[in-house]
């Protein structure tokens, strides 16, 4: 068992090095930070001196090795744009992104399961058809358009909810939370819906398909024959059996919620790491970009690792086969 975990960890480290390398390759094409740093009055000599000082003339592998060495010591350098240590910037903004991701994941899970069960039970009803066809919107419309539409409706026309920002925050240690104030909660609604809509429709369709599958099975028929009430059949037996794949998918989607938050955060001026990344791209703020990509890469790898380990714990067949491969 320990060997399997160690092997998985080794694979994860390899993936992270690869992520760092690929992101480094991309930086060659995003442009040059020198003009942003020096302004239009800079002379040719100053430009050359700065390019040299930043090490932009060094061969790529030298820059990459330098970055990896520093990153291993959790030193990501200072941002070119904000003149702040990158690690501080990420720590300051991470709570905003994680709270948004968490709330939208809960939203997606809750409404996705409810709507999925509903459309499965009343699969020929009018409202089930309505939900199914409107759910296509969630899948097909791009996130920024949904965000702008929601702002237009709820902030401009109806004036119910704020159009941007995070509202009032409360500081608990290093963590700044907007979940404890009224304006913070109100500010959370539109971005969370925007970010979670796609996942919600995904979960809803998954739950519906799984439910339809399970409702056809013998043990459901048997439960009905025993005269159990419909409520118990649906929620006690059917739903419980659909949740295993649903939780897997939802867990994996959590990583992509954090990554996709870039667009939602830009539309709602949400002060999280996604907005920070977009600003860094515009400014060619290489220290921030590389640290962010590494962060997201780590997040995905960690989530995948946890899911893998959970599989091993849950399903003995996988564990046995892996052990067998090891002994031969």
């Amino acid at each position: 068992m320990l060997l399997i975990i160690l092997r998985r960890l080794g694979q994860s480290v390899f993936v992270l090095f690869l992520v760092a390398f690929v992101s480094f390759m991309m930086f060659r094409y995003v442009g040059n930070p020198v003009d942003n740093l020096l302004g239009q009055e800079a002379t040719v000599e100053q430009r050359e001196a700065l390019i040299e000082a930043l090490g932009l003339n060094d061969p790529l592998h030298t820059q990459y090795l330098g970055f990896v060495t520093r990153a291993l010591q959790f030193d990501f350098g200072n941002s070119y744009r904000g003149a702040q240590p990158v690690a501080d910037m990420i720590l300051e903004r991470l709570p905003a992104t994680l709270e948004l991701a968490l709330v939208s994941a809960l939203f997606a899970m809750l409404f996705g399961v409810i709507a999925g069960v509903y459309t499965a039970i009343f699969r020929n009803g009018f409202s089930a058809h309505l939900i199914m066809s409107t759910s296509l919107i969630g899948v097909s419309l791009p996130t920024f358009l949904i965000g702008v539409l929601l702002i237009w409706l709820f902030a401009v026309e109806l004036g119910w909810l704020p159009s941007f920002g995070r509202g009032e925050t409360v500081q608990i240690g290093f963590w700044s939370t907007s979940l404890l104030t009224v304006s913070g909660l109100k500010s959370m609604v539109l971005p969370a819906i925007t970010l979670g809509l796609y996942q919600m429709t995904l979960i809803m369709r998954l739950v519906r398909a799984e439910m339809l599958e399970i409702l056809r099975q013998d043990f459901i028929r048997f439960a009905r024959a025993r005269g159990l009430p419909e409520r118990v059949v649906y929620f006690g037996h059917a739903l419980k059996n659909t949740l295993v794949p649903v939780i897997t998918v939802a867990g994996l989607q959590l990583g992509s919620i954090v990554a996709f938050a870039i667009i939602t955060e830009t539309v709602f001026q949400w002060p999280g790491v996604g907005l920070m990344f977009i600003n860094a791209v515009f400014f060619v703020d290489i220290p921030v970009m590389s640290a962010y990509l590494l962060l997201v890469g780590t997040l995905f790898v960690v989530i995948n690792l946890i899911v893998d380990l959970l599989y091993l714990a849950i399903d003995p067949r996988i564990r046995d086969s892996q052990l067998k491969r090891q002994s031969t």
Partner: protein
Amino acid sequence: MKSLTTRLAVGVFAGVFVSTLASAETIRWARAGDSLTMDPHAQNEGPTHALAHQIYDSLLQRDMSGAIIPSLATEWAALPDNPNVWRFKLRKGVTYHDGAAFDSEDVVFSLNRAMADGSDMKELLSSVKEVRAVDSHTVDIETHGANPLLVNNLTNMFMMDKGWAEANDVMTPHDVAKGETNFATMNTNGTGAFKLVSRSIDEKTVLTANPNYWGKSIYPSQVTEIIYTPIQSSATRVAALLSGQVDIIQDVPVQDLGRVSSTAGLTVGTAAQNRVIFFGVDNADGPTADLRVRQAMNIAINREAIKKVVMREQSDPTGVIMPPFVNGWTAALNEYPAHDLGKAKALMADAGYANGFDITLNCPNDRYINDEAICQAAVGMMGQIGINVTLDAKPKAQHFPFIKGGDSDFYMLGWGVPTFDSHYIFNFLVHSQTGDRGSWNPTGYSDSAVDDMIVSLESETDLAARNATIAKIWAAIQAQQMYLPIHNQVLNWGMKDSIEFAVQPEDQPHFQFLTFN
């Protein structure tokens, strides 16, 4: 924890004030980008200066119409017997936010700080030889040779307290290029109309009125609190104004101007911006080296169509690469040729390009108002005279290094003139690309007579003679059609109509000038 206690303290403080002052007037202000640092000498950049102007003062400043007015200096003049020395009389009785007095020692310190390594402001002071305190409220600035335009370079040169800088170890600006940071990037101590209360980068900056501001009786000073939030997405920024969550926004996208001005309670202020947009062409090689081809391209640009269709009337077409505030501007230079395809085609035929040629137009897509759309319009217009243009639009971070490398034959550029003098344009855009000069002139245009005239402007103290030289330089480059001017940008601020606030040509709101109706 610190910010919670600060916030609580501020809350209590504000509560006390609300009960004593009948009308606390808060302005919620939004624009696309945040200030890059609170250190006043580390970045020479518009939004950074705009925020710094609320907190720090310079010796003299530009008011809301762009004219130079006294600020921390009340009088200034070159010494009658030595044109190399400017003498500034400082305002008396001015204190910093922490109570320290402002005097000539601070001016000497601040200007030297702005000239130090790592300062982004030092190019503006490159002519300064020495700064001397004559007495506690008089300062002399000596330049290498006479510099008639020195005061134009001082409007964003902010004054810091020497004692505060020493106490907090911020004697030099943090060098952004080296990734440095210091106490002054997040903390301030100025003499300005507002004090910094809290700041969260890219999120929210809160300022409160300075009760001891020296200009209180000079300017309306009605704003008691500023809440500044950068909102990057233009649709969200407009929505924030329409839904009443902010009171004033800068950078209203042109397609939303109608929507904002037709909303009850809102108004749009406009003013010509200090920024001209133009095309650069290769003057030395290829088809565009022929003067007739450049003239044909200039005539083929339909500036009125660009104004009407691309800019929705929000531009000021021009025939010269100089905004109208700049010293040297004349209505005659500003005139642009009528759009005349017949004449343009005849010029092309004369030059031997009756069948046209292929060229690539390099264009930024995130820098100027509708930059890429203007370039798309130009592609069609050039096509009408047989020039087959391929458009290559890129983000500014790639566009500017590319054109500065001299690899582009046809490119878009915009230029603002912070000194409000033609020399600034000549020095960067016209002078041959040698040494410190001509860094933004990748066109290959080079004329040693013009170069000499440009250099002579820097020490000519006879203003009439100087202006005559400026006119001669403009005549020379207009005759060569060195650049193809398009228009001057127009600035828009969307705001509540309960606010009386003029749009400032440098895009810098100075909130002590704001009045409530």
